[in-house]
Structures are given as C-alpha cells and as structure tokens.
C-alpha cells in the first residue's frame, strides 16, 4: 500500500509539472521586432544575426552572399550551416503554407535539420507586406519534436530578414 502511494505521488509530481509548464508560455510571435532602432536588445542568436544582417546587406545586395556571410558568424559555434537559394513555389520550411511575394531568397539552416533554426533573406518589391506575411505564417513549432525559442524579422530597404531560432546554440 505504501509503495503504491509512493509511486502514485511520484506520478502525480510529474503530472503536476504539467501545470508548471503550462504557466510558462512559449516565446511566440510577440518577440518579433520591426526595423526601428530599439534599446535593450536581447543577447540572443536571432538578434545577433539581425545585427549582422544590417551590416552585411549594406555591403552586398545578393541574398545568397548575405546569407553566406551570416553563417560564418561565431554564434553558430561548431554547427555546420548551409545556404540554399529559394524561389517562389519552393517548399519554405518554417511556415504554415508556402511563402510568396519575393524576387529572390536564400535559406540558411543547420546541415542537421533537427536543430530548431531556420533563417531567410528575401529580396522583394514590397518588404513591409512580406514581413507581415512572414510573421502571420511563421510556426515556431514547424520542426517536428522541437520548438524555436523566438522569431525575429527585420527590413532593410528591399530586403527582409527572418529567423526562428533557439536562444543560442550552446548545448543543453
């Protein structure tokens, strides 16, 4: 009887963790920011990459070159990153449905896809509309089993930056 009670208590403790977890909400699309200058930027991977994007897009207007520059960032540590060009109609992981309304795009992501990171650089004629569409369609839990911690977007001229990412790639 005592053993059964103890085991029930163990089980209930684990179930009670459900409510602890319920109290914590995932960081969702409200972490997004636009292209305004803001203070107290979180020290996370996505925001770090956004800063790099703003620097790189001034130097080069080719989206693949910008993406290739971003994946050289030490933020990624030892993780091998890859860049792939994306055209309209291509499968665009990270979103509910495909994304359209851009001239060219590059996707950058870990070579091993189970890390919940996905990034895009888009070149478009209507960057604000595209940014709004990306925010609307983005799915933080697009990656089976894992959930990205945050989503960050940015607009610089005709270029839209989009990243969903863990806070960092430091191993847990």
């Amino acid at each position, binding site marked *: 009887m005592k053993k059964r009670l103890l085991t029930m208590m163990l089980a209930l403790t*684990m179930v009670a963790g459900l409510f602890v977890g319920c109290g914590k909400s995932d960081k969702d699309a409200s972490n997004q920011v636009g292209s305004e200058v803001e203070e107290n930027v979180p020290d996370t991977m996505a925001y770090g990459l956004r800063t790099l994007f703003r620097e790189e897009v001034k130097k080069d207007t080719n989206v693949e070159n910008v993406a290739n520059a971003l994946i050289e960032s030490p933020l990624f540590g*030892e*993780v091998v990153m890859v860049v792939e060009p994306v055209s309209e109609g291509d499968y665009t992981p990270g979103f*509910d449905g495909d994304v359209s309304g851009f001239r060219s795009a590059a996707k950058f992501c870990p070579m*091993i896809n189970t890390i919940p990171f996905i990034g895009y650089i888009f070149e478009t004629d209507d960057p604000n509309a595209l940014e709004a569409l990306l925010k609307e369609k983005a799915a933080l839990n697009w990656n089976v089993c894992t959930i990205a911690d945050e989503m960050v977007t940015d607009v610089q001229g005709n270029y839209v930056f989009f990243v969903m990412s863990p806070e960092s790639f430091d191993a847990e």
Partner: protein
Amino acid sequence: MKNKKTIMTFAALQILFFHLWISVFPGNQVELFLRTTSYIGVDIFFFVSAYSLSQREVDSYGKFVLSRFLNIYLKYIGFAVIAFFYAGWQIKTFIYNICGISLFTKGGGSFLWFLPAIMLVYLLLPLYEKLHQKNAVLTGVAFIIVWIAIAVAISQLTSYKALFILWNRIPIILLGFYAAKSDFVTEVLQSKKKSILAAVALLAVGETLLFFFGFREKLMFPIVDLYYLIAIPAVLGWILLLSQIPEVWITKMVGQATLEIYALQMIFGYTLANKLFRANMGPLAVNLLTAVIIVVIAVIVSQLIRVLKNFPQSKHKM
C-alpha cells in the same frame, strides 16, 4: 510481440535517420519526406512498449516500477551525467532533466525526452490496466473524452505546446495496450499473409496522410501537433510488416541497444557528423559512417552494461 527486435531495430534506425541525416540530394522532396516523417520511429517504440506491458502480468506494481527504473531510468541518469560533463550543463539543467521537469517545459527539446516519457507511461499504464479490469468500456470512453477535452482546451486557450509530443502519443500507446488484448490482432500477427496485406493497406493510407498532413503542411487544428495522430496508420503498417521479418543476430544485437543508440546520437551525433563533414567527406559517406559508428559503439556499451549487471551473479556461480 513477434520479431520485436526487428521492429525495434528499424525504429531505432528511423530515429537516427531523423536526427542526423544530412541531405544527399538538396531539394529532393522524396528524401525530404522520408527524413521529415521518420520521427514515427518514436511512435513504434511507444506502441511496442505498451503492447509488451499489456501482455505481462504485473504482480507487484512497486517491483515493476523499480525494475523499469533500474533498466531504463538509471541508464538515462547515467547518460545525463555524461552530458553534464561533455556539454557543460548547469546543475539546474541536470536536475530539471533527471526529474522530468524539462520534459514538461521543453518537450522534444529536453534531453532524451523519450526516456522520462516512457517512464511516465510505465508509471501510469498499470494503473490504467487496473481501471480497465474494473470497467473496460467506461474506462476507455471516459479516458478518450478527457484526453480530447484537455488537448483541445490547452491548444485553444493557452500557448503551451511542449507536452503535445507525448500527449498526442497517448492514442498510439493505448492502441498498443488494447492490441495486446485483442484476439483479432493476435490472429493477424500470426498470419504472414494477413499481416502483409494489412500492412500494405495501412502504409498506403498512412503514408498518404503523412504526405498531406504531416510533411510540408502539418495538421495543427484543433489540437496542436495533431499530425502525430495522422501517423498512426503508417505506424501500424510498419509494425505489421516488420513483425513478419525474422530476427537475425544483427537485429537482436541492435534491438537490445536502442536506448544506447538514442543516447549516443543525441550526445555525440551532431559533433561527429559535423566533424566528418568538415573532413570533406560527401554527405552520403558522412551519413553512413556516423550511423555505423554510433550503432557499433552503442552495441558495445549495451553489451558491457549487460556483462556488468550479470557480473555479481556469474561471480556467485563461480
């Protein structure tokens, strides 16, 4: 379950494929589909575990839980210790993981999430069995209603998503539980012809459902991550098909080392694959070599653990 080690070997390799496969043909939708949907290896494990548990007589709940703890959770804690040092965890991370808290806060992002999850199944399924024995219909119906109500409520009223990786596996777990008690299922499993026919039908339906609702666009309404349920026909199809493939020495060895395969791939797999890739090996070579290294080391570790566990007994016999 018939040819259980064959089934477990396949499921373990599917999960390895899911976690560590590097694209060989970038942009190829077939390769992408196969990799994206190979998470169903987890569902296969849940079904087989529930099926096996449903078949056995649990005389003493405490002894059963203790045996599961020693065989599974102790290994999990051991691998958590390795990860603590290897990955430089904070002590809070270590404690949250081994106490199962990370499972509820991070879901599939927690360390070896499947192991605390299956431990939870081993804690709760025998209790479900007791309710089932008292009133099978009422238990089943009530449970389904409660499961749906909680899933819809949390999906629609909160932003919490982490535990759906386990919550949405409850149907496949219960299917395993009930399948073990079903004469019809037993009859199908014992007939090679019936098993293969059923498997083909289920796979045709299941893989089609996965393609439309669990691949590029995933079914998320009205329950978060509802696409896990979409996978059920495919999962059952694979189990039926694999149950007809006889175990051989390699599947027996690999099938015994599935926990070690899972742990090693998650602790060392990314580093290994990245290093091999940086050594300018092509993606296919990286994939194959990573898999072979992890499986071989896992089998060795598994056999070592067995020897160590049996050592006091063999010493006594001497």
